[in-house]
């Protein structure tokens, strides 16, 4: 069953269809929010706000839009708001061990070291570059979808991704050089 069919079921009063939508999309939302905010707690809050806001607004979803893109347009705004809230609290982004743990893929020491360095490198990107890099290379959205999600133009987004890649490359190369 497609996302659009599930939305129709929700609007017809079938609440289980919303559970299905949550189970399809919550993990991707949580991943983006965690990488964006660098903090599991803030990421869960932003994702919850996103899904509840989406639920309230399902009647305005248009089937010709890809549901995931529509959902990410809400999520990106929630993450921006959360980042703003956090900057007011003057919390640091990178020193959150829980966030680093969520990058876990393998259990070897090398993998743990890599994920920690990657998290630090991502955290040092400018927020706009981090957002564009994650949407492009992690969530694998097209530039047209990214434009709809972020409100930025395609060429500006390409530039942000390019700058982010260059910055990530420099940071991760410096780390590997120091490790030798």
């Amino acid at each position: 069953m497609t996302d659009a069919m599930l939305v129709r079921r929700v609007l017809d009063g079938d609440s289980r269809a919303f559970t299905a939508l949550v189970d399809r999309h919550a993990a991707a939302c949580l991943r983006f929010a965690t990488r964006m905010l660098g903090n599991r707690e803030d990421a869960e809050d932003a994702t919850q706000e996103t899904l509840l806001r989406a639920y309230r607004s399902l009647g305005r979803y248009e089937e010709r839009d890809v549901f995931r893109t529509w959902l990410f347009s809400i999520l990106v705004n929630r993450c921006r708001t959360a980042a703003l809230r956090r900057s007011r609290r003057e919390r640091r982004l990178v020193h959150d061990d829980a966030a680093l743990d969520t990058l876990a893929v393998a259990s070897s020491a090398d993998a743990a070291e890599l994920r920690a360095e990657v998290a630090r490198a991502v955290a040092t990107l400018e927020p706009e570059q981090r957002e564009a890099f994650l949407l492009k290379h992690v969530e694998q959205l097209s530039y047209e979808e990214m434009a709809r999600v972020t409100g930025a133009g395609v060429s500006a987004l390409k530039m942000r991704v390019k700058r982010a890649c260059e910055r990530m490359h420099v940071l991760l190369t410096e780390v590997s050089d120091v490790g030798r």
Partner: protein
Amino acid sequence: MSDADDVLDCDPMTPASLDGAVRALRADVPVRGEWRDALLREAAALPAPRRTTPVSRRVRRLGEFLRAARRPAWVLSPSAGVAAALLCAALGAGVAWGVMRRAESAAVPGDVAVASAPASGWAVPAVRFALTAPGASRVALVGDFNGWNPAATPLRASADGRTWSVALPLTPGRHVYAFVVDGSLTADPVAPRAADEDFGTPSSVIMVAESSP
């Protein structure tokens, strides 16, 4: 060639040097069962969503209208252009005369409300919308009060061409609106932004108070 031009026509794959980093970033973040259950409980406590006409649909229609408006649908011959210009001038003079007559009979100096303040002398409060847009050639006001129709409420430029404004009666309550500056939607820089921006629409909110007797 600028840096931006360099990347305009390319859609880069993940750079090889970042393969490992991207793989790590793509790893799943586990969804905690308690968090999922709490989310679904909160959703169940909300009113069931209903089908509505979304702002995004109205704005998309507006965008389609604006794009269509930019495309010339026909070409005017020089002689027909002169005739049309004369006709427009005559119509414009007539409209201006009518407006002046109406202004003489109805308008009181200073009766136009600024921002959300209600004005006296109107059946419903009049609100003055203004935007500083030097260099703009056409500015219009769109919102839920005029069906987001960019042809419905054009703004008039001040003598120096810097400030554009219009006053119109609005019913008391909350209204979402935006300006269309030379075909581009822009929010009011001095008003609160609308929550509907989650759908990518730059729009603002105005609260119109009940008119005092």
